[in-house]
């Protein structure tokens, strides 16, 4: 099942959610700095970043708990920058779930409807529907503390969705669940989103979660958005050292640009002790210092020297980590640099590499990505 329904499509036409040059300042500290972002209707947009990168502050501004210092926020064409949270067509699922402990599950889910003064029988029906949708039929009379973590998570989701918000904000939605449950819930979450067509904005620090859930990801760092793109874009074509390093594992080599043509370039990497041939130009100033990012799974290992003239280095195996589905090797080059290489264990009787063995590592010219700082 492909979780990323519509790939890299950037929002066309008028965006559903528009964040326009928003800054949030706490004292002299810019938690969010000049962020602009357009999100289309029906998207699952993930704000990804380490702690303190401003992703939660941005989410809280969408919810209305924080007011931007500068800039404005539009939802469905309406300026909501100064609209209080209780008047926004936005609901949020909190990281701690924030279920009201003194109310039953049904009362929790009905809370939002009651605030709108919806007729009790109608509200009851919608609560029942919603609980059925999250597979919690019959749990209505229970209290939150009588539920397991996964059940609580689904109650929180039902409560946030029952008002049919234009925008659902999810703060680390799967953070408190164990690994198996998280994997299952990811699929349920995406299914639910498809059924209801609600636009999701998710905040997470977990890159795997972002990759599986999101149609687009925005990588944040110190209050700014570094890169916006589909999971594939972000992984295969990171635009900066930070993004390359944050998403997945990567080998990074600083080097000097020696040749830069429209269709290829050569970078001399001191650390690698070789020139890297890359099958795309970077149109940068000559002799510029750049970084080559190379994913571990894009490197081949072998005892025999490959026939290709470029992008080959020799080293010895300094570390082996067997992970079941794949094996991770550390290849030490003659100058001391270590190269991470991942090999998937497709064949059980694969060429068996041992510690201290001399190997050749090679890669295709279109595998490395040249990133600026």
């Amino acid at each position, binding site marked *: 099942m492909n979780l990323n329904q519509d790939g890299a499509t950037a929002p066309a036409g008028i965006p559903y959610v528009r964040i326009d040059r928003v800054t949030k300042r706490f004292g002299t500290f810019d938690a969010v700095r000049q962020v602009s972002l357009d999100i289309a209707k029906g998207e699952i947009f993930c704000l990804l970043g380490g702690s303190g990168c401003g992703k939660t502050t941005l989410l809280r501004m969408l*919810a*209305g*708990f924080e007011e931007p210092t500068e800039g404005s926020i539009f939802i469905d064409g309406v300026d909501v920058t100064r609209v*209080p*949270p*209780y*008047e926004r067509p*936005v*609901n*949020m699922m*909190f*990281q*701690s779930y*924030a279920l*009201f*402990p*003194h109310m039953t599950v049904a009362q929790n889910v009905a*809370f*939002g409807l009651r*605030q*709108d003064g919806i007729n009790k029988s109608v509200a009851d029906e919608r609560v029942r529907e919603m609980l059925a949708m999250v597979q919690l039929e019959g749990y209505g009379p229970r*209290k939150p*503390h*009588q*539920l*397991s973590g996964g*059940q609580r998570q689904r109650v929180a989701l039902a*409560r946030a969705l029952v*008002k049919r918000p234009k925008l659902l904000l999810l703060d680390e939605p799967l953070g408190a669940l164990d690994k198996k449950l998280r994997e299952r819930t990811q699929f349920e979450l995406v299914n639910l989103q498809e059924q209801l067509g609600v636009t999701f904005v998710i905040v997470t620090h977990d890159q795997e979660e972002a990759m599986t859930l999101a149609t687009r990801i925005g990588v944040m760092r110190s209050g700014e958005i570094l890169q916006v793109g589909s999971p594939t874009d972000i992984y295969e074509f990171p635009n900066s050292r930070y993004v390359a390093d944050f998403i997945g594992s990567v080998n990074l080599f600083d080097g000097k640009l020696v040749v830069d043509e429209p269709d290829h370039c050569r970078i001399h990497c001191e650390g690698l002790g070789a020139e890297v041939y890359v099958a795309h130009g970077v149109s940068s100033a000559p002799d510029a210092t750049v970084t080559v990012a190379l994913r571990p799974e894009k490197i081949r290992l072998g005892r025999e020297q490959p026939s290709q003239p470029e992008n080959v280095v020799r080293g010895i195996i300094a570390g082996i980590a067997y992970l079941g589905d794949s094996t991770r090797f550390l290849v030490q080059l003659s100058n001391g640099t270590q190269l991470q290489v991942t090999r998937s264990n497709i064949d059980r009787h694969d060429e068996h590499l041992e510690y201290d063995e001399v190997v050749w590592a090679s890669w295709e010219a279109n595998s490395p990505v040249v990133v600026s700082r």
Partner: protein
Amino acid sequence: MKVRRSPFVLVMLVVGFAFLYLPILSMIVYSFNASRLVTVWDAAHSPTIIWYRELFANDQVLEAARLSLQIAAVSATGAVILGALAAFALVRYRRFRGRSLFGLLTTAPMVLPEVITGLSLLLLFVALGQWTGWPQARGASTITIAHVTFCLAYAVVVIQARLMTVDRSLEEAAMDLGARPWKVFVVITLPLILPAIASAWVLSFILSWDDIVITSFVSGPGSTTLPQLVFSKVRLGVSPDINALATILVGLVSVCVATAGGVMMRTERRRLHDAQTAMGAH
């Protein structure tokens, strides 16, 4: 594993409890003493309940008890309402000008000598009476106001402690679902801090009920609270009906404590049971 208890531990336990409760116990025993002399046990006619009968026939005592109850109830209620608001401001609005000064001022009466509090309130009421015509004389209302001021300090501390443990995101979630701030306070915050509100109320009630120093400063003719009455009676010599009165008070307090303890234990047990059910439902 069997733990051998040394007899020393047992002895210390008995000595400790004796130190704490022997005086009260002797007072209870002597309340059934027939003799008018408090320290002489009249074995021929005891035990008896004449002092209790005398007590309930004494209008002065009954009126003082009624006044004390009324003042304690009203000032506890006032202190809890103001205390809840102050605690909410202190815990939920972390960044307002003068926050630490406000916190200091609300809790200062706790450490202020009662004599100072009483005297300053007396001066205030006298000055106020001269300028505005109110209060013309000091009485139940001035006592109540005085009690609110010092009970407030305790109420703020108790409620503040509880409020700090209430997850802020619960209030945000309610607001996010469409509840206005005042509604959030009433339907979310208030029920969650209700145990603290109740204990703050009981604490304030007891503080007001047995206060004598501040009360003496701000009371007037015709408004004698129970502690004041006891105090003035004892000054004329200890009479046995005081023992009876004290015994009734001790009995009332014991019943209250036992009830509160029982309720708390039951909720705790139910909570544990629920938690276990939740584990099973996984």
